[in-house]
Structure formats: C-alpha cells, structure tokens
C-alpha cells in the first residue's frame, strides 16, 4: 500500500510519523482531508514541499471545528503566522495534539495557549472574560462574569500574582481527570 502513494517520499512520511502521534495511514488520510478543503490550492505532490497555506476560513469550515467556539483560537495557536492560515504541517500538528495519544502536559500547554487570547503567556482577567463569553455565548451577565473570573483566579492562582501562568494552569489540570477526554477531537 505504501508504495502506491506518490504524495510524499517515504522519508517525509517517516518524518511526519516521528513528529506526530499518527501512523502513516492516518497521515495520508489527514492529507486528503486537508486537500479536500481546497483541491485547487493543494497539489497532489508534496515531495518538493510546496509552500501552501490554507486560509483560516477554510480550516474553520471543517465539520469537526465548524461549531466549536474556540476554533479561531485553535487555528491561531497552531498556525505559523498566528493568523489561522495553516500549512499541512500546522494541520497535522493541530490534530496530533488534539488526538488521544498526546500526553497531558502537551495538551495542557496548548490549551493554555488557546485560552490566552492576548498571547502574553498569562491568562489574565480579560482572557478569562473572553473564554467565558465564548463558552456561554454571552449569556452571562457582567456581574456574573466578574464573579466567576475572580473566583477562578482565586482557585487556580498559586503564586498569587493575580493571573494564571502555565504552571498554575498545569497544576489545575492535574486536578481534572476529565481533561484528557474532553480536550480531544476525533478525526
């Protein structure tokens, strides 16, 4: 089966296999999912590593992500340019981290980055407010949002600087056994 595909060289497939949590079959299947988003943009021959970048609108229209309120942040975090336009590498990276086999620390790192809206490596109050509004579709009142944010920072902030660093976030994730099963997309 492996010999019939002409999309990647076998070294490329090996490299992808070593760098993600996917097997060869899955990588090829994901490539075809990537290509199906824009068949005219993505060539069938990746041997000379073409610079193809799919715009965010196409990535956000995938059925797995279409209704997810965090899809824009997910695409931004995993894309190289930070705008949500993804190359194949970014695409594979995204689904590899969100797959079943990625370890907890790796998932926690990327979850932290997703919830860090202003990219300052801390989840401060404004990030929390945005997260809450996305989770609840702006259904909470201002007061409720404020109270929830304060309580969350109280609970999770260990070093008392008023915002959540990566260590605080990972510490909190350790208390959540459900995290591994919820931060997971099946593709």
């Amino acid at each position, binding site marked *: 089966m492996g010999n019939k595909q002409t999309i990647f060289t076998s070294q490329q497939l090996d490299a992808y296999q070593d*760098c993600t949590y996917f097997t060869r079959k899955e990588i090829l299947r994901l490539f075809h999912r990537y290509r199906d988003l824009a068949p005219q943009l993505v060539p069938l021959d990746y041997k000379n590593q073409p610079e193809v970048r799919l715009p965010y609108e196409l990535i956000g229209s995938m059925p797995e992500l279409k209704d997810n309120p965090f899809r824009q942040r997910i695409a931004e975090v995993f894309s190289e340019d930070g705008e949500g336009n993804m190359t194949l590498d970014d695409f594979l990276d995204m689904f590899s981290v969100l797959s079943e086999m990625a370890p907890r620390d790796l998932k926690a790192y990327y979850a932290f980055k997703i919830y860090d809206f202003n990219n300052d490596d801390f989840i401060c109050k404004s990030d929390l407010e945005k997260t809450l509004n996305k989770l609840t579709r702006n259904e909470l009142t201002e007061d409720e949002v404020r109270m929830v944010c304060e309580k969350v920072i109280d609970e999770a902030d260990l070093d008392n600087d008023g915002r959540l660093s990566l260590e605080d976030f990972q510490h909190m994730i350790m208390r959540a056994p459900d995290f591994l099963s919820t931060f997971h997309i099946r593709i």
Partner: protein
Amino acid sequence: MAASQVMETISSEDEDQEMIELEAIRSPYGAAKFDLTHANPEDLEAQHYHEPKHTNALHRNNWSSSTQRVLSSMPSRSIRFNQLTALSRSTVTCRRRPLSDVSTTNCTTEHDVFREQDDCENDVAQKEEVLNKLQGLSAGECMRVLREMPISVSEKRQIRAWVFCWAAGQPCVHRYKGASGSSAVCAFTMDQVEEAFNGRYREVNRETQQWYTYNHLVPEPRPGAVLCGWCYGRVSQQKSIQLWQGALRNISAHFGTGVLSYFIFLRRLLIYNILFFLINGLFLVLPQISNPPLPKNIHTTTADLWMLTGMGVLTDSVMFYGHYDNNISIYNNFKNVTKWCPENYNIPLAYIFTIGAGMFITCVMLVYSMSKSIGRGFRVFKTTGNLALKVFCSWDFKVSKKWSVKLQSVNICTQLKEMVSELSCRKQKRNLCSTLGWIHFLVWFICIFCIAACMLAVYHLPSYTDQICSKANSFQKAVCLLKLPLVMSCISQLLPGFFDMLSTVEHYDSPSTRIYVSIVRNLLLKGCIFGILCYCWFEQHSCRTKGLITWQCWETLVGQELYRLVLMDLLFAIVYIIIAEFLWGLCIRNITFRRKKLEFDIARDVLELIYGQTLVWFGVLFSPLLPAVQIGKLFLLFYFKKTSLMTNFQPSKKTWRSTQMSTFFIKLLFFPSFTGALACVIYVMWRVGPSSDCGPFSNLHSMLLLGKECQGSSKPSMLWLSWTYKYLVNNPIFLFITAALFFTIIYIYMQVLDGQKMIIVRLQKQIENEGEDKKFLIAKIQALNEASAPQ
C-alpha cells in the same frame, strides 16, 4: 537613605496601598483567597470601581518602564516547565505572536520586545543544547521526547533532520571485523546505504548465482531496509484494532463523553466475557466434547422453547453442569474415537481449576483497570471549588454537531450561573431543609416498601407457578418456567424508573448527590431480589437433602434458571427499547411542540449491565458456557442501544463527570458485583454438597474436597497437587504467614503515602510563600523606581 525613603513612601501612601497590603496578609493559606462573604463589601466595591479591570492592585497601568524591564527579564517568565521545553521554546524566532494583538494588552507591550531580543541572542546556543540532549538518548526515547516537545511539526522535522545528519555524518564507529556477529551494513556510510536502498531492487537466482532486476511490485518495506518508523517504536504507536471504533466516534460527536462511557463500559464487559469463554472453552468444554460421557438414564423430553428455557436438548449438553463427567466414568469409556486430549484428562479437576482460573484472571483485570481508573482520577491538591475546572476543562471538543454544541453551551452556562448564585447566597442557609427532611424519609419508606413487596412476590412465585403448571402440556410448562425470570426482569428494569420519578419530588444539594442516591436505591433493589432468589434455591436444596423433595441434579436446575434469567433480561431489554424508546419517543417528538427527545439515563443502564454480569459470574459454576450467552447478549444490546440512541435521544442537559463516574462504576463492578458472585461461588463449592447423581463431583461431599481425593491417588502427575493441598492449602501456618506478609506490605505503603502527602502540603505552602515574597518585592521595586525617577 534610599531605604528610609522607601519606608516613608510606603507609610505615607494613600489608603489604597495600605488596604491592599492588609489584604495580602489576610488571605488565609489553603483556602480561597477572595472569600466574598467574609471580606468587607464596601472596601471591595471601592477597589473594584476604582480600577474596574483589575482584581489585584499589582496590575496597574502606570508601572514605570524600568519596573517593567526588570519584570520582563525575570527567569520564570521565559522558562517553561521543563528544561527541554524551555530550550525548544526559545529556539523559535518569531512565532505565533501577531503584532496586532500586542498593543491591546494591558501591560505587556515592552515585555514582548525584550523577549524577542533575548530569543535572537540565545538562538544558536540553545539549539545546540537541544541537539546535545536529544543525541544522548536512545532512538525510541529520542522520538518520544521529540513528539512531546511543544513546538511546531516543521521545527520538529528540522530538529529530527539535524539529529540524523549528525548520526550519519560521523564515520561509523564499528569497523567491519569479518566476525560472524557483525553486520555488513556497518561497513558502509549512510550515504552509500541510502544509495543502495533507493536504487533498483535486485534479486539473486540461487541456481545461476546471478543478480536480476526485479520488475514486479517491490515489497514494502524493502527487505533489509532499516526503516526509522519500525525502529522507533512505531509498532507500539499503532492503534490497536479496536472494536466499534467508528460507531463510538459517531456517538461521541453527537452526545459527548458521558454517554460514550456507557458504551465503553459495555465493550469492557464484552472483553471480560470473551476471556472467560476462551478459558472455559479450551480447557473444559472442548475436552468434554471430545470425550463424551456415557448416556444417562434420565429421559430428555423434547421441550418447547428449549432455547429460551434451557430445557430439553440443552439439559444434558455441555451447557450445564450435569453433563460433565466425574473421573470414574472416563475410565469406563472404551470408545475408540480419536480424542484431542488424553484419556486421563481429569474433568473434575479441570472444572475447578478452569472456573477458578477464570475468576482469578477476571479479578486481576478488574483490579488493574480499577487502579488505573483511580490513578487517572486522583486529586492530590486542595479540592475546594471546581469553578476553574468547570471553565477550562468542561468543554468537550469531541462534540461537533451544531445542536449538541448549543446544548453544551447552555449546559455550561446553567452550571456557571448555579455556581455563581451559590457563591453569592452562601450565607442564606436553606431554611427549607428541615421542613423537607420528611419528604426524603417518605420517599425512602416507599422505596423500601416496594423492595420488600417485590421480595415477597419473588419468594412466593415459584410455589404459585408450580401449582398451576404441574398438569399442563409442554408449551405451557415452558411458559410457566419463564414467568419467574419475566417477573424479575420487570422488577429490575421498571422499578428504578419508578424510584427516579419519586425522587423528582425531593430536593438535593447537588446533582451528584441525586445520582448517588438513585444508584444506591437501584443497587438495593437488585441486590435484594437476587438475594431472595439465592435464598429460595438454598432452601429448596436443604429441603432436598432432608429428603422432602426429589430434586435431582440441582446444579443443572440452578444453571437453567440463571440461563433463563440472562436471556429474559435481554429479551425484556429489547422489548423495552422498542416500546419505551422507539414508540414513546415517536409520540413525544410528534406531540410536543418543541420536538423534544428523550434523555439517556446513563446510571440506570450501566447498573443493568452490572446486574447482568453478576448473574453470569455467579452462574458460570453451574453453566460453563454462560459467558458465551452473555457475549451474544452484549453484542445485540450494543447495536440496539446505539440505534435507539441515534434516533430517539438528545444530549443530556445534566452534567456528568464521566471520569469520576466511570471509576465509580468499575468499583461497583468489582464490589459488590464480582466479589458478591465470587463469595457465593466459593460458598457453594465449599459448603453445599453436590448432587450425587450427576456432574463431576457426584461422589464427593463438597467440591473442594477433590483435593483430599487426589491425596489418596498415587499418580505421579497428581503428586504436586496433593503436596500443594496438604502443605499449602490445609496448613494454617502458611496462610497466617502469607496474610501477615501482605498486611505488613500494605502498612508500609500506607505510611509512605502519608509521608508524601505531608511533603506535598509543605511544598504547596512554600509556593504560596514565594508568591507573597514576589508580590512584596514587586511593590518595593515599583516604589523605588517611583521615588528615584523624575516625574
């Protein structure tokens, strides 16, 4: 000089600063730092309206640039949680930080600028450090570490290529010595090897000793190729062929992780049953089939509905206990047929050992999965408050259908609102609690009354049906036999629904309490009716030993009863799905205006599974092929439930902590389900005398006395058994020593755990202290800078 200035500045500052410092000291360790009910509401409000966007006064807009410079170069703000991640993180030059966002942040503008400068300077040095670290590891370890690095795939490929270049570029260490153990590949460099393996594929013809180019399809992987994927643990990474993977994915996309856990539990039970069936089949059923016993004298009438009732043809088959040989008849069997196993295959011994081994292996697997589950759900740190977890960990990314996503959103919103209202109304104790206490009592009384009524019904039913059915024809007899299992299935499936309806009147503090109470009531019901049934059988057995009733081969009868129970359970479940879920769901959808669907009750269905499995574990002693029946039942149930779920149900509005509940259900499966069945089986094997006219133990007073029988035998193959029985099982000193050893080991582990808990508490306190120090120092720096800088 500067010091005193600072002191003065602090003491003469305005009210805000003092108030904030006080607050910093006041926050108690190990509890919530912002306890809204204890803090002075006016102070808090003043602080909030003074600086509407910050909860903590440390975050102020007007920090001086020198302060920010110091803060941005603090080590904790650029080093990640482990060293490798830190190194790899800073190898990235300008990654994923769009400049448009930077200006909108509050206090990080200059922060970023300094970070990038640091990156560019240390780039090369740190790349080398990453490579050095990776090269020191073995191949598999290297790839594992590479995969776990939080950098992009293109960077990982780059690092990987560098690692391999380094490995290939250096001259080969092992010289070709020509010895027998060395490989020809080591004599060449990687470039030459690559050239050979990427060239044409040639084969040698052994007769002519000539090399010919192979023109057909080259096998993949090429023979002799040392592929990276294979050496680097790719095999272990491959997903195991899992049953029903696609169906489970579909279910999780629509319904999320909670409902998925029911189906995963079903799959787990299936695996246990398959294992038990294999063990029984290989070591007990197959030898018995190949060594069929002498035909017995009992007349096997052709009975109607024999498949459902287990009578007729099945009575004297490998399905039930009565068919199995005791040793004596084997010696008399002189048939000259080809046998798969030797003639002296000791069926009674095999019976005990097979059942024992099956139970033991199931026990080990249950304990293992229980411990893994508990380990996953283990919470070490302070468990006060779940709000942060609710915000960050409750969104199920698997759910992808629009309607399900909307429901999830609404669900989370409702829970957050509930938590917020709890926060603000904590002082108002619910005065209603005392007045509603009697409702709880009433509902419990009704439940216990129902359970007692069912127990009486189950107790008197056999005698009642015996009176009616003694003079009927065979079809009516079959139907009569099915009455008891039908009644039991009705009770165990319908009554919990009734209990749930009753409990809607009650008020509980949290939804999880409600779930636990309903589970307890359900368990009580099922345990009681099963207990009553066992008591009936035991009573009949004791009547038989007193010579009051002729009840031949009671084990087969009990086995048949259990077989009927398992099958009736399946039939009733299917009928219930069709009527209560398909038809009722159709009515609800068409009649209600909002096209509401049913909601899946996970707890009730899982308890049904656990009950069915208990019956199987108890019945395997009397009917060794019962696990096979259970396998068929679970398969059918999966497909019926899945179809019904997709058609009739909507995602639940209630919260379901799936990991916690999965752990709870596995614990329930172990105790009381498995341990109860095991205890019953051991009791039957030990105390209850086997019937003297059928089965492998017909010449013994108790099944376990087989060991004593073997003591007398002089066969060399039995010597080890008799030795084991005499010196290990029958010897109290050995048992005492083993028990004492186990207790000592458990005690030592408990002490170690206690010590570790204390260490964790101390470390937590240390982290908090460091945080306080940091706050203090930041305030001091700011004060210094303000004092020294010209305005």
